[in-house]
């Protein structure tokens, strides 16, 4: 690989300090950053391991809010009885990320900080109206995801937890790329205290986004039929060797209907 320094952070302040220099990066599960380093897509001077910070791990449910620590692994969210009870769609989403070994290492904080345009967690955060908590502020999901692999995080800013309001109903449907299992199109829908939300991942040319026309229609009647006839603009879709933009636009409509049917049923 590329010759970096490794530090094990003792607490969040230590991690923020050590990862604030220009070429330093926090290290969570490593399931994105290590492959990126191997491919030469990333060349950090220092990796600051968050794994020793106990405060960043764990799940708690308090009334109508589920809080998940940034270093909580996908497998732990998928297997959590608390998450399964409060927001079953979120547990199921986490259980559908990658494969068992990816879920045994990858974390919610790493997934959100990375903001891969085909990742699942960004859709869950946007689709549930989550709040991303960092070492120095709270950021609404609506303001957090800023396009391809871009977020509102400053250099050296550490995600500590994500807070999800418990919806009245929600579902996530994903059309996985059969090779990578990332979303070719994934749609997270919810209805509850954060409003009626439709968040789409995998499809957008500019990353995860909310589908306003569908949200308005579902606000009137939360049913798959309400989405009939809503067209998704092909011009806003990504186009690559996996799928052309017109196919993605078509899939968004289909997958959104399935998600709504699952949530409503």
């Amino acid at each position, binding site marked *: 690989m590329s*010759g970096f320094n490794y530090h094990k952070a003792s607490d969040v302040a230590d991690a923020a300090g050590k990862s604030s220099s220009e070429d330093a990066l926090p290290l969570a599960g490593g399931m994105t950053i290590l492959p990126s380093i191997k491919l030469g897509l990333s060349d950090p001077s220092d990796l600051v391991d968050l794994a020793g910070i106990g405060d960043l791990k764990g799940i708690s449910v308090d009334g109508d809010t589920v809080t998940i620590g940034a270093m909580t692994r996908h497998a732990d969210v998928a297997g959590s009885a608390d998450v399964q009870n409060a927001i079953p769609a979120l547990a199921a989403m986490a259980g559908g990320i*990658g494969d*068992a070994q*990816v879920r045994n290492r990858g974390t919610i904080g790493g997934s959100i900080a990375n903001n891969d345009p085909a990742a699942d967690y960004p859709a869950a955060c946007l689709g549930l109206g989550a709040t991303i908590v960092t070492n120095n502020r709270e950021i609404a999901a609506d303001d957090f995801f800023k396009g391809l692999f871009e977020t509102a995080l400053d250099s050296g800013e550490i995600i500590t937890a994500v807070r999800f309001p418990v919806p009245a109903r929600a579902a996530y449907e994903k059309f996985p790329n059969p090779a990578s299992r990332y979303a070719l199109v994934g749609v997270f829908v919810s209805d509850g205290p954060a409003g009626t939300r439709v968040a789409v991942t995998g499809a957008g040319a500019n990353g995860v986004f909310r589908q306003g026309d569908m949200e308005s229609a579902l606000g009137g009647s939360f049913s798959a039929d309400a989405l009939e006839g809503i067209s998704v603009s092909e011009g806003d879709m990504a186009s690559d060797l996996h799928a052309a933009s017109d196919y993605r636009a078509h899939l968004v409509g289909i997958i959104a209907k399935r998600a709504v049917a699952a949530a409503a049923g």
Partner: protein
Amino acid sequence: MATVSMTVNGNAVAADVEPDTLLVDYIREHIGLTGTHVGCDTSQCGSCCVMLDGDSIKSCTMLAVQAEGAEVTTIEGVADNGEFHPMQQAFHDNHALQCGFCTPGMVISAIDLAAKNPDIDEAGVRRGLEGNLCRCTGYHNIVKAVLAGAQAMKG
């Protein structure tokens, strides 16, 4: 250089490594256990799977320094005093391999899957092994073996 210590197959081991040394290279080059394979080196194929503190993980996608203090089990550590692990025996009985390159990772993943899901069915096995690729068998005998191995592990 950093000294990294862990337990591998029940033995305390330590070696001086660069921070960018992958766990799989630590296991193969420094500890000398070459049963753990590198198929893709891009986190896709699962031939590098080992157990780390009770969970199967891809050792090509973890730094040795991240495993400081951990308990690692490789394919060399699953048999008991020369007796095959029930999952190894099931792979043998069901002819679940051809070239055998993917097999160490398959067996490790299968042990993890069966331990966590004792009553797993065929669909569960196929889903549960999504992280392990085999270029030879066409998977059918692997699935049969994992179902048999899961039964045997219960008894």
